[in-house]
């Protein structure tokens, strides 16, 4: 036994997080992992080396004091740990669940060089859950009222974050949300088994307690425009409207019944709770042989939802190989465990319809990988004559989203790029319109929850400075 504390820490293995058995969970919508117990969290927190110059912090888009909060966990001060995170991140229970830690904070952890990194995400989740369950939620001090008003358009990760920050800075904030329930992609997109909606609701409640006003059922750009908001006396507007428009394959037969965009399929299940039909009124197709097109997190969410809704065969159909799958490793792993079948190097070319216009099959072509393309990934090339048909009775197209043109089209002078995304300064979120800022997917195209939150934090600082000049 060595007395060297570093050596001792290295002997504690990375603590696993207990989760539902695959054969059980593929039949329910309950969250997959159970989270750390107090004991396990204490053990895991002790593994942190408390680096003087912590590389993990540099890897975090919202600059959480990671060693700081983990130190508090190691000392048993779990609520203190949660509050430490909340100094910079308003949504730790969400980030602890959906952040890609393996490409952000954990990948650069010093321990990762020789073995497994500290389970930063699991610890973040643990303290946030601990604080929420304790009911001991502290409302932080707000700066004195500035007398200024800000409008936030969209209540997804960016909107919730900037609203929290601006309220704390002393400004009056109103969030406008198009749907009937706030939370954006956290509510309509990410399924219950990955992010329980009660957690999102708790975060929204917290924001209301802080003093933010939330107005659901208002689509800015239809009826009221951005200019109307400015005319009504809002001093600044933040656009966090997401990239909500679905992308389809544009191949024959795509409008057959039983073919969904991932947005529709997930919105029906998550926002409208169609998985609880007929208790909830919104229906959803219950495919037995389901193909999900695409390889990202949204594709994994869709295919795992289809399994839970009773599919016998649930396929991921992806035109590249396993190495190129853009989804988080954890999601791919969970999908594999639950029995999702992966059809790699496969690209659909046509949907085949049967009686009553319902999809019955999908003609695909086999692909091979060629030279790297612009994205640096090897380009998939069709193999001539390799067409074959997969029997399906439901398809979910999860190949990405694009900018919803409603806000840009109704905001004169708001500069967009060739894909319709809003052009914004990466440091401040400032757009071509004075007093109008933007962040998240409507600027980046496709971002993660935490990247959208990072944009929102920077924009909050910039808006704060801007409001001081008025």
């Amino acid at each position: 036994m060595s007395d060297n504390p570093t050596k001792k820490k290295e002997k504690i293995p990375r603590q696993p997080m207990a989760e539902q058995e695959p054969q059980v969970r593929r039949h329910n919508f309950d969250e997959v992992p159970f989270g750390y117990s107090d004991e396990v969290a204490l053990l895991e927190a002790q593994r942190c080396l408390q680096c003087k110059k912590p590389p993990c912090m540099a890897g975090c888009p919202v600059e959480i004091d990671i060693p700081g909060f983990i130190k508090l966990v190691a000392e048993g001060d779990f609520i203190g740990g949660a509050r430490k995170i909340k100094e910079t991140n308003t949504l730790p229970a969400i980030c602890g669940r959906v952040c890609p830690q393996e490409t952000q904070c954990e990948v650069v952890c010093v321990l990762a060089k020789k073995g497994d990194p500290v389970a930063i995400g699991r610890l973040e989740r643990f303290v946030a859950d601990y604080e929420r369950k304790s009911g001991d939620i502290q409302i932080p001090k707000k700066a004195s009222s500035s007398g200024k008003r800000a409008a936030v358009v969209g209540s997804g990760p960016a909107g919730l974050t900037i609203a929290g920050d601006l309220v704390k800075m002393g400004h009056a904030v109103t969030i406008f949300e198009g749907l009937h329930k706030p939370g954006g992609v956290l509510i309509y997109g990410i399924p219950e088994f990955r992010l329980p909606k009660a957690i999102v609701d708790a975060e929204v409640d917290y924001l209301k307690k802080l003093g933010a006003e939330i107005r659901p059922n208002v689509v800015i750009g239809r009826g009221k425009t951005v200019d109307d908001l400015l005319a009504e006396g809002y001093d600044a507007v933040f656009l966090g409207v997401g990239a909500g428009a679905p992308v389809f394959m544009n191949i024959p037969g795509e409008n057959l019944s039983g073919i969904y965009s991932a947005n529709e399929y997930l919105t029906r299940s998550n926002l409208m709770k169609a998985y609880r039909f007929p208790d909830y009124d919104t229906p959803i197709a219950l495919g037995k042989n389901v193909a999900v097109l695409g390889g990202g997190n949204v594709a994994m969410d869709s295919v795992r939802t289809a399994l839970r809704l009773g599919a016998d065969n649930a396929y991921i159909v992806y035109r590249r190989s396993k190495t190129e799958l853009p989804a988080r490793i954890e999601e791919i792993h969970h999908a594999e465990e639950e029995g999702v079948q992966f059809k790699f190097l496969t690209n659909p070319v046509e949907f085949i319809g049967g009686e009553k216009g319902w999809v019955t099959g999908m003609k695909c072509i086999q692909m091979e990988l060629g030279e790297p393309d612009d994205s640096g990934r090897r380009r998939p090339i069709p193999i001539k004559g390799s067409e074959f048909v997969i029997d399906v009775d439901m398809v979910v197209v999860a190949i990405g989203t694009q900018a919803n043109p409603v806000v840009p089209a109704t905001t004169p002078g708001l500069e967009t790029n060739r894909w319709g995304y809003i052009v914004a300064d990466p440091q401040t979120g400032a757009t071509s319109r004075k007093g109008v800022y933007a962040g998240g997917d409507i600027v980046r195209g496709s971002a993660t929850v935490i990247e959208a939150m990072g944009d929102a934090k920077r924009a909050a600082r910039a808006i704060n400075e801007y409001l001081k000049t008025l």
Partner: protein
Amino acid sequence: MLNEVIENTKLSDIVVRMVIEAPDIADTRKAGQFVVLMIDEKGERIPLTIVDSDAAKGTLAIIYQVVGKTTAQLAEMRAGDRLFSVLGPLGRPTEIENFGTVVSVGGGVGIGVAYPITKALKEAGNKVISIIGARTKNILILEEELKAISDKLLISTDDGSYGHHGFVSDILQNLITSGEKIDRVYAIGPVPMMRVVCEVTRPHKIPTVVSLNPIMVDATGMCGACRVAVGGKTQFACVDGPEFDGHEVDFALLATRLRMYCDQEKQATESTRCTCHER
């Protein structure tokens, strides 16, 4: 109170007119636009065309036919009840200008959708001929209201109980044959009716606008549930429509997609007869 039901009046055995408090929507809505409403938190989001509005009172009117669980529940609501949510105005407004002579064709509950468009066309100075029809006399709606804003009103019933015995498309055909110069036709009603009207006007190259009613979820361009094929291209009725060039619309696809949840609708209404094909 927001989203309060001000009145909910039966226009016929199966068609109901509801007036809702929604000041922001009443303020900004234009002819041809619609709202999405939910009765309660477990409810469906259903799109309904705004039939009329009163900006001073902050109210808007919708007309719906009882076809399934949600509309049956809606019909049960009384003045003073509140809807869980009302979102709007959605969709592109109707392009209104003085085209000359326009014919507005409304079938069944579609007469309610045709009404605000007809009214706006009349106000823009058009000569307006309205043709309305229903299966039978006692479910025919808005006769008086349309008479008041039309230069001529013609009526048909499928069973001959009132007006012309036959279809609205027959009347339109007769009108064209009689030499009436028609600059534009609006056709709003069940899918088969709109399809036939478009076939009547096609040989005469009369521009024909239809208002489509596919299944929607968010109705803001996010989900694509409402996709329709127009001129061989996929469009979203919620943001690209709901009005399209009727000569380019794939009505067979629209009809098929409207039946997508036939089985679930039966289950929800616990009825043995599915009514979704009557949309």
